Protein backbone atom coordinates (compact mmCIF):
# COMPACT_ATOMS: atom_id res chain seq x y z
CA UNK A 1 0.00 0.00 0.00
CA UNK A 2 2.79 2.39 0.93
CA UNK A 3 6.46 2.26 -0.01
CA UNK A 4 9.41 4.42 0.91
CA UNK A 5 12.18 4.07 -1.65
CA UNK A 6 15.67 5.14 -0.67
CA UNK A 7 14.10 7.95 1.32
CA UNK A 8 16.52 10.50 2.79
CA UNK A 9 14.88 13.31 4.71
CA UNK A 10 15.26 15.78 7.56
CA UNK A 11 14.61 19.41 8.40
CA UNK A 12 16.11 21.83 5.85
CA UNK A 13 19.88 21.16 5.91
CA UNK A 14 19.64 18.72 8.82
CA UNK A 15 19.74 15.09 7.62
CA UNK A 16 17.91 12.62 9.87
CA UNK A 17 16.89 9.68 7.63
CA UNK A 18 19.28 7.96 5.23
CA UNK A 19 18.08 5.88 2.28
CA UNK A 20 15.16 4.22 4.05
CA UNK A 21 13.46 1.41 2.18
CA UNK A 22 10.20 0.36 3.79
CA UNK A 23 6.99 -1.34 2.75
CA UNK A 24 3.67 -0.97 4.60
CA UNK A 25 1.32 -3.79 3.66
CA UNK A 26 -2.41 -3.25 3.25
CA UNK A 27 -4.61 -4.17 6.25
CA UNK A 28 -1.58 -4.94 8.39
CA UNK A 29 -0.02 -3.24 11.40
CA UNK A 30 3.56 -2.16 10.82
CA UNK A 31 5.50 -0.84 13.76
CA UNK A 32 8.62 1.30 13.64
CA UNK A 33 10.79 1.02 16.73
CA UNK A 34 14.18 2.34 17.69
CA UNK A 35 16.08 4.24 20.36
CA UNK A 36 15.43 7.92 21.04
CA UNK A 37 16.60 10.14 18.20
CA UNK A 38 16.67 7.32 15.67
CA UNK A 39 14.28 9.17 13.33
CA UNK A 40 11.04 7.25 13.96
CA UNK A 41 8.79 10.31 14.18
CA UNK A 42 10.65 11.98 11.31
CA UNK A 43 9.88 8.89 9.24
CA UNK A 44 6.13 9.32 9.80
CA UNK A 45 6.32 13.05 9.13
CA UNK A 46 8.25 12.39 5.92
CA UNK A 47 5.57 9.97 4.73
CA UNK A 48 3.02 12.73 5.35
CA UNK A 49 5.07 15.47 3.68
CA UNK A 50 6.00 17.51 6.74
CA UNK A 51 9.80 17.33 6.35
CA UNK A 52 12.42 18.23 3.76
CA UNK A 53 12.89 15.31 1.38
CA UNK A 54 16.53 15.22 0.25
CA UNK A 55 16.19 12.22 -2.07
CA UNK A 56 14.08 9.12 -2.65
CA UNK A 57 10.36 8.62 -3.13
CA UNK A 58 7.15 7.89 -1.25
CA UNK A 59 4.70 5.71 -3.18
CA UNK A 60 1.08 5.39 -1.99
CA UNK A 61 -1.31 3.08 -3.84
CA UNK A 62 1.18 2.98 -6.76
CA UNK A 63 1.21 6.78 -6.98
CA UNK A 64 4.27 8.92 -6.33
CA UNK A 65 3.21 11.29 -3.53
CA UNK A 66 6.68 12.54 -2.58
CA UNK A 67 5.78 16.14 -3.43
CA UNK A 68 2.03 16.00 -2.73
CA UNK A 69 1.00 18.58 -0.07
CA UNK A 70 -0.24 17.14 3.27
CA UNK A 71 -3.88 18.21 2.86
CA UNK A 72 -3.98 16.39 -0.50
CA UNK A 73 -2.58 13.26 1.17
CA UNK A 74 -5.42 13.56 3.70
CA UNK A 75 -7.91 13.43 0.83
CA UNK A 76 -6.12 10.35 -0.53
CA UNK A 77 -6.84 8.49 2.74
CA UNK A 78 -3.64 9.01 4.70
CA UNK A 79 -4.15 10.16 8.27
CA UNK A 80 -1.26 11.27 10.45
CA UNK A 81 -1.81 11.73 14.16
CA UNK A 82 1.02 13.57 15.86
CA UNK A 83 1.91 12.72 19.45
CA UNK A 84 0.61 16.06 20.76
CA UNK A 85 -1.69 18.76 19.39
CA UNK A 86 -3.77 16.21 17.51
CA UNK A 87 -7.15 17.61 18.61
CA UNK A 88 -8.51 21.14 18.98
CA UNK A 89 -8.51 21.62 22.76
CA UNK A 90 -10.76 24.71 22.70
CA UNK A 91 -13.45 22.95 20.67
CA UNK A 92 -15.90 20.44 22.09
CA UNK A 93 -15.69 16.76 21.18
CA UNK A 94 -18.66 17.20 18.85
CA UNK A 95 -17.04 20.22 17.16
CA UNK A 96 -13.80 18.27 16.69
CA UNK A 97 -15.76 15.54 14.93
CA UNK A 98 -17.60 18.14 12.82
CA UNK A 99 -14.34 19.74 11.68
CA UNK A 100 -13.01 16.30 10.76
CA UNK A 101 -16.04 15.94 8.49
CA UNK A 102 -15.69 19.46 7.10
CA UNK A 103 -15.52 18.30 3.49
CA UNK A 104 -18.29 15.68 3.78
CA UNK A 105 -21.97 16.25 3.09
CA UNK A 106 -24.35 15.91 6.03
CA UNK A 107 -25.48 12.36 5.25
CA UNK A 108 -21.98 10.98 4.86
CA UNK A 109 -20.78 12.85 7.94
CA UNK A 110 -23.53 11.23 10.00
CA UNK A 111 -22.59 7.74 8.78
CA UNK A 112 -18.90 8.29 9.50
CA UNK A 113 -19.67 9.79 12.91
CA UNK A 114 -21.85 6.80 13.82
CA UNK A 115 -19.00 4.49 12.81
CA UNK A 116 -16.45 6.46 14.84
CA UNK A 117 -18.72 6.46 17.91
CA UNK A 118 -19.32 2.75 17.46
CA UNK A 119 -15.57 2.15 17.76
CA UNK A 120 -15.16 4.74 20.52
CA UNK A 121 -18.46 4.71 22.46
CA UNK A 122 -16.60 6.43 25.35
CA UNK A 123 -16.82 9.70 23.38
CA UNK A 124 -20.60 9.64 23.23
CA UNK A 125 -20.82 10.85 26.85
CA UNK A 126 -18.30 13.62 26.26
CA UNK A 127 -19.80 15.26 23.17
CA UNK A 128 -20.35 18.70 24.75
CA UNK A 129 -17.12 18.69 26.71
CA UNK A 130 -14.11 20.67 25.50
CA UNK A 131 -11.38 18.36 24.15
CA UNK A 132 -8.88 20.13 26.41
CA UNK A 133 -10.65 18.69 29.45
CA UNK A 134 -10.40 15.06 28.25
CA UNK A 135 -7.87 12.66 29.73
CA UNK A 136 -4.83 11.75 27.61
CA UNK A 137 -6.39 8.45 26.58
CA UNK A 138 -9.71 9.99 25.65
CA UNK A 139 -7.87 12.58 23.55
CA UNK A 140 -6.19 9.77 21.62
CA UNK A 141 -9.61 8.16 21.11
CA UNK A 142 -10.91 11.46 19.78
CA UNK A 143 -7.88 11.95 17.51
CA UNK A 144 -8.33 8.48 16.02
CA UNK A 145 -12.10 9.05 15.72
CA UNK A 146 -11.43 12.20 13.66
CA UNK A 147 -9.23 10.13 11.35
CA UNK A 148 -12.07 7.61 10.92
CA UNK A 149 -14.43 10.43 9.96
CA UNK A 150 -11.89 11.62 7.40
CA UNK A 151 -12.19 8.20 5.68
CA UNK A 152 -8.61 7.27 6.49
CA UNK A 153 -7.30 4.04 4.97
CA UNK A 154 -3.77 4.37 6.26
CA UNK A 155 -3.51 5.50 9.87
CA UNK A 156 -0.11 6.73 11.05
CA UNK A 157 0.12 7.00 14.83
CA UNK A 158 3.05 8.66 16.55
CA UNK A 159 3.44 7.23 20.06
CA UNK A 160 -0.28 7.10 20.85
CA UNK A 161 0.34 5.64 24.32
CA UNK A 162 2.97 8.16 25.44
CA UNK A 163 2.12 9.65 28.84
CA UNK A 164 -0.83 7.25 29.32
CA UNK A 165 -1.42 4.94 32.26
CA UNK A 166 -0.73 1.24 31.50
CA UNK A 167 -4.47 0.55 31.63
CA UNK A 168 -5.28 3.20 29.03
CA UNK A 169 -2.25 2.17 26.93
CA UNK A 170 -3.61 -1.38 26.75
CA UNK A 171 -7.02 -0.06 25.71
CA UNK A 172 -5.37 1.95 22.91
CA UNK A 173 -3.55 -1.17 21.68
CA UNK A 174 -6.83 -3.11 21.73
CA UNK A 175 -8.51 -0.33 19.73
CA UNK A 176 -5.69 -0.31 17.17
CA UNK A 177 -6.13 -4.05 16.70
CA UNK A 178 -9.88 -3.55 16.36
CA UNK A 179 -9.34 -0.89 13.67
CA UNK A 180 -7.34 -3.38 11.64
CA UNK A 181 -9.52 -6.44 12.17
CA UNK A 182 -12.95 -4.81 12.05
CA UNK A 183 -12.48 -1.89 9.66
CA UNK A 184 -9.60 -3.24 7.60
CA UNK A 185 -7.40 -0.20 8.18
CA UNK A 186 -3.69 -0.21 7.52
CA UNK A 187 -1.72 1.02 10.51
CA UNK A 188 1.77 2.46 10.68
CA UNK A 189 2.75 2.80 14.30
CA UNK A 190 5.65 4.44 16.10
CA UNK A 191 5.77 3.32 19.72
CA UNK A 192 7.94 3.60 22.79
CA UNK A 193 6.06 0.71 24.38
CA UNK A 194 8.01 -1.62 22.09
CA UNK A 195 7.04 -5.07 23.38
CA UNK A 196 3.33 -4.43 23.49
CA UNK A 197 3.41 -2.75 20.07
CA UNK A 198 5.26 -5.65 18.46
CA UNK A 199 2.84 -8.14 20.00
CA UNK A 200 -0.07 -6.64 18.06
CA UNK A 201 1.96 -5.92 14.88
CA UNK A 202 2.43 -7.96 11.73
CA UNK A 203 5.61 -6.32 10.50
CA UNK A 204 8.35 -4.27 12.10
CA UNK A 205 11.19 -1.95 11.27
CA UNK A 206 14.00 -1.06 13.60
CA UNK A 207 15.61 2.30 12.96
CA UNK A 208 18.99 3.20 14.38
CA UNK A 209 20.57 6.58 13.62
CA UNK A 210 18.24 7.14 10.71
CA UNK A 211 18.95 3.82 8.99
CA UNK A 212 17.02 0.56 8.86
CA UNK A 213 18.76 -1.93 11.18
CA UNK A 214 16.09 -4.63 10.96
CA UNK A 215 13.06 -5.36 8.82
CA UNK A 216 10.81 -8.37 8.97
CA UNK A 217 8.00 -9.96 10.90
CA UNK A 218 7.21 -8.38 14.26
CA UNK A 219 7.57 -11.69 16.09
CA UNK A 220 11.03 -12.20 14.58
CA UNK A 221 12.16 -8.94 16.13
CA UNK A 222 10.53 -9.86 19.44
CA UNK A 223 12.29 -13.24 19.43
CA UNK A 224 15.60 -11.80 18.29
CA UNK A 225 18.29 -12.85 20.78
CA UNK A 226 19.71 -9.35 20.83
CA UNK A 227 16.27 -7.70 20.92
CA UNK A 228 16.91 -5.52 23.95
CA UNK A 229 20.35 -4.35 22.80
CA UNK A 230 18.93 -3.58 19.37
CA UNK A 231 16.10 -1.51 20.82
CA UNK A 232 18.38 0.69 22.87
CA UNK A 233 20.79 1.02 19.96
CA UNK A 234 23.81 -0.93 21.21
Amino acid at each position, binding site marked *: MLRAEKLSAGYKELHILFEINANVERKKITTVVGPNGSGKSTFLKSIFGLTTIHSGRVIYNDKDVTLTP*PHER*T*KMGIAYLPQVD*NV*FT*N*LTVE*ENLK*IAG*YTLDNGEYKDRKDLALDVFPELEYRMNQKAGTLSGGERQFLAIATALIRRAELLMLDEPTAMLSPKFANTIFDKILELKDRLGLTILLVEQNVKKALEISDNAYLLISGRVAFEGKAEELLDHEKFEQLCIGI
Partner: protein
Amino acid sequence: MAVIEGALVYSNLLALLSIGLTITYITTGVPNFAQGTMAVFGSYVSLTLWLLFGVHPYHTIPVSFILGGILGIAIYTVVLRPMIQKEAMIVILMIATLAVDLILLGALGAYSETLGVISGKGTRKFIFTPMDFKILGADAILVISSLAILMLLFTLFLLLYKTKFGIALRASMENPALAEIMGVNVEYTRIFSWFLSGSLAAVAGTLLPFRQEIVPATGAIIIVSIFAASIVGGLSSIYGALAGGYIIGMSESMVTFYLSKVIGPYILVYSKVISLIVLIIALIVAPSGIAGLEIWRKRVWRKSSSS
Protein backbone atom coordinates in the same frame (compact mmCIF):
# COMPACT_ATOMS: atom_id res chain seq x y z
CA MET B 1 -23.17 61.63 34.16
CA ALA B 2 -22.07 63.07 30.81
CA VAL B 3 -18.51 61.99 31.62
CA ILE B 4 -19.58 58.40 32.25
CA GLU B 5 -21.67 58.39 29.07
CA GLY B 6 -18.73 59.72 27.06
CA ALA B 7 -16.44 57.13 28.63
CA LEU B 8 -18.89 54.34 27.78
CA VAL B 9 -19.17 55.48 24.14
CA TYR B 10 -15.39 55.64 23.85
CA SER B 11 -15.04 52.19 25.45
CA ASN B 12 -17.62 50.70 23.07
CA LEU B 13 -15.69 52.02 20.07
CA LEU B 14 -12.36 50.93 21.51
CA ALA B 15 -13.78 47.44 22.07
CA LEU B 16 -14.88 47.25 18.39
CA LEU B 17 -11.37 48.27 17.31
CA SER B 18 -9.45 46.02 19.68
CA ILE B 19 -11.63 42.99 18.84
CA GLY B 20 -10.78 43.59 15.16
CA LEU B 21 -7.08 43.94 15.90
CA THR B 22 -7.09 40.79 18.03
CA ILE B 23 -8.93 38.69 15.43
CA THR B 24 -6.38 39.40 12.70
CA TYR B 25 -3.53 38.93 15.15
CA ILE B 26 -4.84 35.49 16.13
CA THR B 27 -5.49 34.31 12.55
CA THR B 28 -2.52 35.82 10.70
CA GLY B 29 -0.06 36.84 13.42
CA VAL B 30 0.03 40.43 12.19
CA PRO B 31 0.00 43.28 14.75
CA ASN B 32 -1.86 45.80 12.58
CA PHE B 33 -0.67 49.35 13.19
CA ALA B 34 -3.05 50.63 10.51
CA GLN B 35 -6.17 49.71 12.56
CA GLY B 36 -6.65 53.30 13.77
CA THR B 37 -6.42 54.79 10.28
CA MET B 38 -8.75 52.07 8.98
CA ALA B 39 -11.26 53.54 11.44
CA VAL B 40 -10.65 57.05 10.09
CA PHE B 41 -11.33 55.61 6.62
CA GLY B 42 -14.80 54.75 7.93
CA SER B 43 -15.19 58.30 9.27
CA TYR B 44 -14.48 59.68 5.79
CA VAL B 45 -16.88 57.23 4.12
CA SER B 46 -19.65 58.60 6.35
CA LEU B 47 -18.54 62.22 5.89
CA THR B 48 -18.61 61.78 2.10
CA LEU B 49 -22.12 60.31 2.11
CA TRP B 50 -23.29 63.10 4.42
CA LEU B 51 -21.74 65.97 2.47
CA LEU B 52 -22.50 64.73 -1.04
CA PHE B 53 -25.81 62.90 -0.60
CA GLY B 54 -27.15 64.22 2.72
CA VAL B 55 -27.26 60.73 4.28
CA HIS B 56 -27.23 60.91 8.08
CA PRO B 57 -24.00 59.28 9.39
CA TYR B 58 -25.97 56.66 11.36
CA HIS B 59 -27.54 55.49 8.09
CA THR B 60 -24.10 55.08 6.51
CA ILE B 61 -23.08 52.28 8.91
CA PRO B 62 -23.85 49.43 6.42
CA VAL B 63 -21.84 51.13 3.63
CA SER B 64 -18.98 51.80 6.03
CA PHE B 65 -19.10 48.16 7.18
CA ILE B 66 -18.78 46.80 3.64
CA LEU B 67 -16.18 49.27 2.35
CA GLY B 68 -14.12 48.84 5.53
CA GLY B 69 -14.23 45.08 5.03
CA ILE B 70 -13.05 45.44 1.44
CA LEU B 71 -10.18 47.66 2.61
CA GLY B 72 -9.23 45.00 5.18
CA ILE B 73 -9.18 42.27 2.53
CA ALA B 74 -7.14 44.51 0.19
CA ILE B 75 -4.50 45.23 2.86
CA TYR B 76 -4.19 41.52 3.64
CA THR B 77 -4.16 40.10 0.11
CA VAL B 78 -2.10 42.80 -1.60
CA VAL B 79 0.46 43.64 1.09
CA LEU B 80 0.59 41.10 3.90
CA ARG B 81 -0.20 37.72 2.37
CA PRO B 82 2.71 37.79 -0.11
CA MET B 83 5.04 38.58 2.80
CA ILE B 84 3.59 35.85 5.03
CA GLN B 85 3.99 33.36 2.17
CA LYS B 86 7.68 34.31 2.04
CA GLU B 87 7.89 33.63 5.78
CA ALA B 88 8.49 37.28 6.72
CA MET B 89 9.26 37.85 10.40
CA ILE B 90 6.69 39.54 12.63
CA VAL B 91 8.83 42.72 12.75
CA ILE B 92 8.69 42.99 8.97
CA LEU B 93 4.91 42.50 8.99
CA MET B 94 4.58 45.12 11.68
CA ILE B 95 6.63 47.62 9.66
CA ALA B 96 4.55 46.77 6.59
CA THR B 97 1.39 47.76 8.48
CA LEU B 98 3.10 50.99 9.55
CA ALA B 99 3.80 51.65 5.86
CA VAL B 100 0.15 50.89 5.04
CA ASP B 101 -0.86 53.30 7.81
CA LEU B 102 1.24 56.10 6.31
CA ILE B 103 -0.04 55.40 2.79
CA LEU B 104 -3.64 55.46 4.05
CA LEU B 105 -2.92 58.65 5.98
CA GLY B 106 -1.55 60.32 2.85
CA ALA B 107 -4.47 59.10 0.75
CA LEU B 108 -7.02 60.29 3.33
CA GLY B 109 -5.28 63.68 3.55
CA ALA B 110 -5.40 64.12 -0.23
CA TYR B 111 -8.97 62.82 -0.32
CA SER B 112 -10.13 65.24 2.38
CA GLU B 113 -8.72 68.16 0.32
CA THR B 114 -10.55 66.91 -2.80
CA LEU B 115 -13.77 66.35 -0.87
CA GLY B 116 -13.49 69.89 0.50
CA VAL B 117 -13.21 71.29 -3.03
CA ILE B 118 -16.13 69.20 -4.36
CA SER B 119 -18.47 69.89 -1.44
CA GLY B 120 -17.32 73.45 -0.82
CA LYS B 121 -17.01 72.74 2.92
CA GLY B 122 -14.05 72.36 5.24
CA THR B 123 -13.23 68.66 5.62
CA ARG B 124 -9.78 68.66 7.21
CA LYS B 125 -11.41 68.62 10.65
CA PHE B 126 -14.94 67.49 11.28
CA ILE B 127 -17.28 66.33 13.99
CA PHE B 128 -20.79 64.79 13.84
CA THR B 129 -21.88 65.76 17.39
CA PRO B 130 -24.32 68.51 16.23
CA MET B 131 -26.17 65.88 14.20
CA ASP B 132 -26.72 63.63 17.22
CA PHE B 133 -30.15 63.35 18.87
CA LYS B 134 -31.67 61.80 21.96
CA ILE B 135 -33.11 58.32 22.38
CA LEU B 136 -35.03 57.84 25.66
CA GLY B 137 -33.16 60.75 27.18
CA ALA B 138 -29.70 59.45 26.31
CA ASP B 139 -27.43 60.56 23.47
CA ALA B 140 -28.12 58.41 20.40
CA ILE B 141 -24.39 57.67 20.09
CA LEU B 142 -24.44 55.91 23.48
CA VAL B 143 -27.43 53.76 22.47
CA ILE B 144 -26.14 53.02 18.95
CA SER B 145 -22.55 52.25 19.94
CA SER B 146 -23.82 49.97 22.73
CA LEU B 147 -26.21 48.27 20.28
CA ALA B 148 -23.31 47.84 17.82
CA ILE B 149 -21.29 46.01 20.48
CA LEU B 150 -24.25 43.85 21.54
CA MET B 151 -25.10 42.99 17.94
CA LEU B 152 -21.47 42.19 17.21
CA LEU B 153 -21.21 39.87 20.21
CA PHE B 154 -24.49 38.15 19.39
CA THR B 155 -23.57 37.71 15.71
CA LEU B 156 -20.07 36.54 16.56
CA PHE B 157 -21.50 34.03 19.03
CA LEU B 158 -23.92 32.65 16.42
CA LEU B 159 -21.21 32.57 13.76
CA LEU B 160 -18.45 31.02 15.87
CA TYR B 161 -20.50 28.47 17.78
CA LYS B 162 -23.48 27.62 15.59
CA THR B 163 -22.09 27.43 12.04
CA LYS B 164 -19.67 25.01 10.42
CA PHE B 165 -17.61 27.90 9.07
CA GLY B 166 -17.39 29.42 12.55
CA ILE B 167 -16.12 26.14 14.02
CA ALA B 168 -13.56 26.03 11.19
CA LEU B 169 -12.57 29.61 12.04
CA ARG B 170 -12.02 28.73 15.69
CA ALA B 171 -10.13 25.58 14.70
CA SER B 172 -7.89 27.63 12.37
CA MET B 173 -7.24 30.14 15.16
CA GLU B 174 -6.14 27.40 17.54
CA ASN B 175 -4.09 25.18 15.26
CA PRO B 176 -3.98 26.14 11.56
CA ALA B 177 -1.77 23.19 10.60
CA LEU B 178 -4.21 20.68 12.09
CA ALA B 179 -7.18 22.53 10.55
CA GLU B 180 -5.51 22.22 7.16
CA ILE B 181 -5.01 18.48 7.73
CA MET B 182 -8.77 18.28 8.39
CA GLY B 183 -9.48 19.81 4.98
CA VAL B 184 -10.33 23.36 6.15
CA ASN B 185 -9.25 26.08 3.74
CA VAL B 186 -7.42 28.13 6.36
CA GLU B 187 -6.80 30.93 3.86
CA TYR B 188 -10.55 31.65 3.61
CA THR B 189 -10.74 32.04 7.36
CA ARG B 190 -7.81 34.50 7.28
CA ILE B 191 -9.43 36.59 4.54
CA PHE B 192 -12.69 36.58 6.47
CA SER B 193 -10.92 37.77 9.63
CA TRP B 194 -9.44 40.74 7.73
CA PHE B 195 -12.86 41.56 6.29
CA LEU B 196 -14.35 41.51 9.78
CA SER B 197 -11.52 43.54 11.27
CA GLY B 198 -11.78 46.19 8.53
CA SER B 199 -15.58 46.32 8.91
CA LEU B 200 -15.47 46.76 12.68
CA ALA B 201 -12.81 49.47 12.35
CA ALA B 202 -14.87 51.37 9.77
CA VAL B 203 -18.07 51.15 11.84
CA ALA B 204 -16.14 52.45 14.87
CA GLY B 205 -14.83 55.18 12.54
CA THR B 206 -18.37 56.16 11.52
CA LEU B 207 -19.35 56.56 15.19
CA LEU B 208 -16.13 58.16 16.45
CA PRO B 209 -16.89 61.71 15.11
CA PHE B 210 -19.94 61.76 17.39
CA ARG B 211 -17.49 61.81 20.30
CA GLN B 212 -14.42 63.66 19.05
CA GLU B 213 -13.07 65.81 16.25
CA ILE B 214 -11.55 63.84 13.39
CA VAL B 215 -8.53 64.72 11.24
CA PRO B 216 -6.77 62.30 8.85
CA ALA B 217 -4.07 61.71 11.52
CA THR B 218 -6.55 60.73 14.26
CA GLY B 219 -5.78 57.05 13.60
CA ALA B 220 -2.15 57.51 14.65
CA ILE B 221 -3.36 58.80 18.04
CA ILE B 222 -6.06 56.21 18.81
CA ILE B 223 -3.85 53.27 17.77
CA VAL B 224 -2.08 53.64 21.16
CA SER B 225 -5.33 52.93 23.01
CA ILE B 226 -6.34 50.14 20.58
CA PHE B 227 -3.07 48.30 21.17
CA ALA B 228 -3.25 48.92 24.91
CA ALA B 229 -6.76 47.40 24.97
CA SER B 230 -5.74 44.36 22.89
CA ILE B 231 -2.59 43.72 24.92
CA VAL B 232 -4.42 44.06 28.24
CA GLY B 233 -6.89 41.57 26.76
CA GLY B 234 -4.05 39.13 26.10
CA LEU B 235 -3.96 39.40 22.28
CA SER B 236 -5.30 35.87 22.05
CA SER B 237 -8.93 36.17 23.02
CA ILE B 238 -11.88 38.05 21.55
CA TYR B 239 -13.49 38.34 24.99
CA GLY B 240 -10.17 39.50 26.42
CA ALA B 241 -10.11 42.28 23.78
CA LEU B 242 -13.67 43.24 24.73
CA ALA B 243 -12.71 43.51 28.41
CA GLY B 244 -9.48 45.33 27.47
CA GLY B 245 -11.51 47.86 25.48
CA TYR B 246 -13.58 48.73 28.55
CA ILE B 247 -10.64 48.75 30.98
CA ILE B 248 -8.57 51.10 28.80
CA GLY B 249 -11.55 53.16 27.56
CA MET B 250 -13.04 53.77 30.99
CA SER B 251 -9.73 54.43 32.75
CA GLU B 252 -8.47 56.73 29.98
CA SER B 253 -11.65 58.83 30.04
CA MET B 254 -12.42 58.81 33.77
CA VAL B 255 -8.89 59.12 35.16
CA THR B 256 -8.05 61.94 32.75
CA PHE B 257 -11.26 63.74 33.68
CA TYR B 258 -10.61 63.57 37.42
CA LEU B 259 -6.96 64.51 36.98
CA SER B 260 -8.03 67.54 34.97
CA LYS B 261 -10.21 68.58 37.93
CA VAL B 262 -7.30 68.25 40.35
CA ILE B 263 -4.32 69.40 38.25
CA GLY B 264 -5.87 71.46 35.47
CA PRO B 265 -7.46 71.04 32.04
CA TYR B 266 -4.08 70.97 30.23
CA ILE B 267 -3.74 67.33 31.37
CA LEU B 268 -6.50 66.29 28.90
CA VAL B 269 -3.96 66.37 26.05
CA TYR B 270 -1.99 63.61 27.77
CA SER B 271 -4.88 61.12 28.07
CA LYS B 272 -2.95 58.46 26.12
CA VAL B 273 -0.35 58.40 28.89
CA ILE B 274 -3.09 57.03 31.15
CA SER B 275 -3.73 54.16 28.68
CA LEU B 276 -0.07 53.26 28.71
CA ILE B 277 0.20 53.44 32.51
CA VAL B 278 -2.86 51.17 32.83
CA LEU B 279 -1.27 48.86 30.26
CA ILE B 280 1.94 48.59 32.28
CA ILE B 281 0.12 48.07 35.59
CA ALA B 282 -2.14 45.43 33.98
CA LEU B 283 0.84 43.58 32.55
CA ILE B 284 2.68 43.62 35.88
CA VAL B 285 -0.39 42.09 37.55
CA ALA B 286 -1.18 39.69 34.66
CA PRO B 287 1.79 39.34 32.27
CA SER B 288 -0.29 37.48 29.67
CA GLY B 289 -3.23 39.85 29.86
CA ILE B 290 -6.79 38.94 30.72
CA ALA B 291 -6.69 35.78 28.55
CA GLY B 292 -3.70 34.69 30.67
CA LEU B 293 -5.74 35.20 33.84
CA GLU B 294 -8.33 32.79 32.44
CA ILE B 295 -5.67 30.13 31.78
CA TRP B 296 -4.30 30.68 35.30
CA ARG B 297 -7.80 30.35 36.76
CA LYS B 298 -8.32 27.05 34.94
CA ARG B 299 -5.00 25.70 36.21
CA VAL B 300 -5.85 26.61 39.79
CA TRP B 301 -9.28 25.05 39.34
CA ARG B 302 -7.78 21.85 37.95
CA LYS B 303 -5.24 21.67 40.76
CA SER B 304 -7.85 22.15 43.43
CA SER B 305 -10.20 19.62 41.84
CA SER B 306 -7.45 16.99 41.47
CA SER B 307 -6.17 17.39 45.04
